[in-house]
Structure formats: C-alpha cells, structure tokens
C-alpha cells in the first residue's frame, strides 16, 4: 500500500495552502488528491477579480490566485494526483488512516496516511432543497453551474434571467451574463438583507441597473419544457409568500445563489462529528476534528466570505498536521479543553473547542451572527468575567467576525464564551 505522511483531500485553495504550510513546517511527504482536471478548485472558474487583497496585497482574479498556490505546490515538488476521487477514509493500523481513492490510471487504490486534511469545499443549494414549487423544465441552474458553462465551456445557459438569492456568485453571474449579452431582469432575495458583499451589489447590479428585490422569492416556476417565466412574490417577516403581492416575470433561465453547503459526506462516513450549524466538522484551534490526525479547513469546514481567509485557515491546519506527524502521530499534551460557548446573536464559532496546551498561543475565533445588527459589541467572557469588548458599527450574517483570545487568558480561563450584544 502507498504510504504518505499527509494526504490532503482536495486540491483547491484550501488543499494547496494546507500542503504548502505543512511542507514549510517540515513534513514533506505529502499527497494532494484532486477530483478535477487540475489544482485550483472552484477558483478556476471564478474569472472575476477581487481575490488576494489580504493574502498577496494585490487584487487578483480567481485563476491568478489559484495559480499562485499551484506554483507554490509545484516549486516544492509536492506530489498531487488529479482526476482522482477519494471514496472513503477509514481507520488503519496504529492510528493511521486509510484513504481509498479511484482514478483511470490506478483504478481503486488505498493510501495509508499518518494525517489527513479534509479540503473538499462546498456545494450550492439546489432547487430541490429550496422546495420551489412549479414545473420542472430545463433552464434552472445554480449560479456556479452557469459560471462553469460560460467561463470554462464558453456556452450560454440562457438569455433572459431571473436570479434567486443575492449570494456573491449570483451577483457576479448577473454581471457576467449581462456583459455576455443576456438580460438579467431581477435578483430576488428572500431575506430583508443581501447575502453578498456591498461592493458586488454596486459593481454587478447597480452598474447595470439590475433591480435587487429584498424580501422576495420565486413562488412558482412556469414552463413545461424550458423555463418560460416565474412568479415572484414578496414574503412576510416569517418568510412566507404573500400571494397578493406577486407578479409574473418572463424569463428562460433561473439562476440560484442561495447559499453553500460544506461537502462533508466523506467526513460523516469516516465517523467524524459535525456541527449542526456550520455543517462542517467540529474542530479545535488547530482545525483538528474529533478524530486524531484528521484536520479540516476551507469551505468544507465552514463557508468563508473570502478565499484569503480560506488560505489563512489552511495554514493553521497544514502546520498542525505537520507537527502531529513530527510528534509521532500524537497531539500535543492538553491541559484542559474549553468549549467555546455561543451567546447572543452568535450562530457559530470556529473553532468550536480550544484544547489548551502548556504555553498556549493566542487563538483567533471566527464566528457569524444570525441577523443584521447595528451598534453592537463583540464580547468575550470567562464565565461572568468580561475579558474583551469590541464595538462594531454593524454586523451581518454575510460577514465573518473574528476575536483574538490571548494565550495567557486561555491558560487561566474556565468557561469561554463569545457574544454579540
């Protein structure tokens, strides 16, 4: 059986960054397994710019950002396989993990790994999951599928478009399709606020006079063969359709940009516990899951706003996996484990738990809120004892927040909570 110190499942931005970080931390026997034709993941089809300001200090397009990481992988001679699908991750002997994968060249094969980093990314919510009633014609795509058709294959999926959901991919595709000659009629957003970045509303919708209708949804899809139109309707505060406030919009295409779901089927089948809110694994500050030696980072762990943050998180996971291997496949001695409690408007935190070690380093806790709130404070407490308070003008579900908790504080803490109030 093939043996590797670290196997990385997925060669997108998370996988590449984790590989580079692990290599640079001294564990060099690495294999990246990627299902698509090349490294880079979904960035390969995100031809727009806006990536890399944090990471590289300049504005890059998706393929450029992907290229930078691909080059780092190649410069280091890190081994990778493309067009290869991981089928399962199981426990092997003495704490090793057996990763079973398949490709055309090798058939079904197994790799024994000392550590595994999960970097499978996420998928888009589909029409079926959204339960949109009506006919079931051709012409209903997730924004990412349309993006692949246009940017990779050079095919147009439609001419007259209604977009449901104001996630960034949907906004980006509104502009992309408009520039390619399509007529994007309206973007409907179920929530009373947009799910995408303000800058994208400006440069993708406002620039082209595309209306954004908040608190609106597609109530019905019309068309026996190809989409012929949609009934769009206002929703009440409980997100239920108000039939009296609906209108028919003619279109031949519907794009869905209604959220992303981490792809954790492998994780689940490996018996690793998931967080109900993030739909990703429960991890500690090293992004180690509840299974020793298995790490997760990037959108498979929780959906990020920016690829720059994915890279940052993957650095942590890659470094930690390298250390784990160097430490004889053992975690660093844990003094105590603190579960990060969510209070107030906080929906989730990553990490969900902090394993406090001797000489504990500072830990950055990432979190999201459940609603748009103005003039709030981000508060970190140890029990009832307030440790930190940061004032914010505005927080929104679409924007990840962070707080950095000092290592010295963690060493003495007993019950850590993060709150927005």
């Amino acid at each position: 059986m093939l043996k590797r110190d670290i196997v990385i499942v997925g060669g997108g931005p998370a996988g590449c960054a984790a590989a580079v970080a692990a290599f640079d931390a001294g564990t060099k026997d690495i294999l990246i397994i990627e299902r698509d034709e090349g490294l880079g993941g979904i960035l390969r089809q995100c031809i727009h710019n806006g990536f890399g300001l944090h990471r590289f200090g300049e504005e890059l397009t998706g393929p450029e950002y992907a290229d930078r990481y691909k080059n780092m992988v190649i410069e280091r001679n890190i081994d990778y396989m493309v067009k290869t699908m991981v089928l399962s991750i199981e426990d092997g002997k003495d704490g090793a993990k057996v990763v079973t994968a398949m490709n055309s060249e090798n058939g079904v094969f197994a790799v024994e790994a000392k550590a595994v980093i999960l970097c499978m990314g996420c998928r888009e919510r589909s029409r079926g999951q959204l339960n949109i009633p009506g006919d079931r014609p051709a012409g209903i795509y997730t924004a990412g599928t349309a993006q692949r058709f246009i940017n990779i294959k050079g095919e147009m999926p439609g001419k007259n478009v209604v977009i449901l959901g104001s996630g960034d991919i949907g906004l980006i595709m509104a502009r992309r399709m408009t520039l390619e000659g399509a007529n994007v009629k309206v973007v409907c957003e179920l929530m009373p606020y947009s799910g995408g970045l303000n800058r994208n509303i400006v440069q993708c919708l406002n620039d082209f006079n595309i209306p954004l209708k908040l608190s609106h949804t597609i109530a019905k899809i019309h068309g026996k063969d190809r989409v012929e139109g949609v009934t769009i309707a206002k929703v009440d505060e409980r997100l239920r359709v108000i039939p009296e406030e609906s209108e028919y919009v003619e279109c031949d295409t519907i794009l869905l940009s209604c959220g992303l779901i981490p792809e954790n089927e492998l994780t689940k089948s490996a018996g690793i516990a998931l967080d109900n809110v993030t739909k990703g694994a429960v991890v500690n500050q090293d992004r180690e899951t509840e299974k020793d030696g298995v790490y997760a980072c990037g959108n498979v762990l929780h959906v990020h706003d920016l690829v720059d943050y994915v890279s940052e998180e993957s650095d942590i996971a890659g470094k930690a996996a390298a250390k784990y291997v160097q430490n004889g496949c053992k975690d660093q001695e844990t003094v105590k484990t603190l579960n990060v409690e969510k209070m107030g408007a906080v929906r989730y935190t990553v990490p969900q738990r902090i394993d406090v070690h001797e000489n504990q380093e500072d830990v950055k806790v990432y979190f999201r809120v459940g609603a748009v709130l103005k003039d709030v404070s981000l508060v970190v407490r140890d029990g009832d004892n307030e440790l930190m308070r940061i004032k914010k003008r505005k927080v929104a579900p679409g924007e990840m927040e962070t707080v950095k908790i000092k290592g010295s504080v963690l060493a003495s803490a007993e019950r850590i909570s993060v709150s927005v109030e």
Partner: protein
Amino acid sequence: MNIGEKRELVCINCPMGCMLTATMTENGLSVTGNTCPRGEKYANEELTHPTRTLTTTLRVENREGKYVPVKTNGPISKEKLFEAMKVLSDVKVTAPVKTGDVVFPSLLGEADVIATGTVD
C-alpha cells in the same frame, strides 16, 4: 455637483465595502466614511470618471473548446465595458498562453488585456 450637494457611495476597492459620503465643498470633494485613502480616490473618480476592471474569457483557436481567462491590466471607463466586450468577442488567442501574457494590447486605447490563466 453643486456646492453643498451630497452623494452616498459604496467603495468597491476591497471586500469591506465602506459606506462613503461625498460632499462638494468650496475646496473640492470632501469624503467621509472611508477607512483608507483609496476610498477618497474612489469617490473622486466615481463621481467624475468611473472606471472598472473588465474580466472575461477568450477563445483559444488552436485548442478545441478551450478558453483562457483574461483581464484588463488596469481599470477602463465604465461606460466602455460593453464596447470592450464587443471588441473582445472577435479576439482569439493562440496557445500556449501563460498567466500575465498580453493577449490584446491597448483595448480601446485604455488598457492591455492580459491572460489570467495558462493554456499549454
């Protein structure tokens, strides 16, 4: 803009998307709400001569069904985006092409078009 006139803008320079307020004063435009100098620059440009970076793909003529992603290497006039797309719709690239290669110089006299991906 007349003196005393106010405009609300969202800065598109980075993902923060700062809410800017631009007020015309006797000494020129006064910008508030920005967290970095780029916000002020953006507001000035947006109100006089708005520009955008254009990204699209070009057909690779000697690689069946392949496209290469490209961008303008600097922003171009916002009002010329559609005209630029029309010019580029006839442009084909010959492989091999590497990230950073200029594939179409001086698009409408405003910027070069460079490849943002590689096709061997």
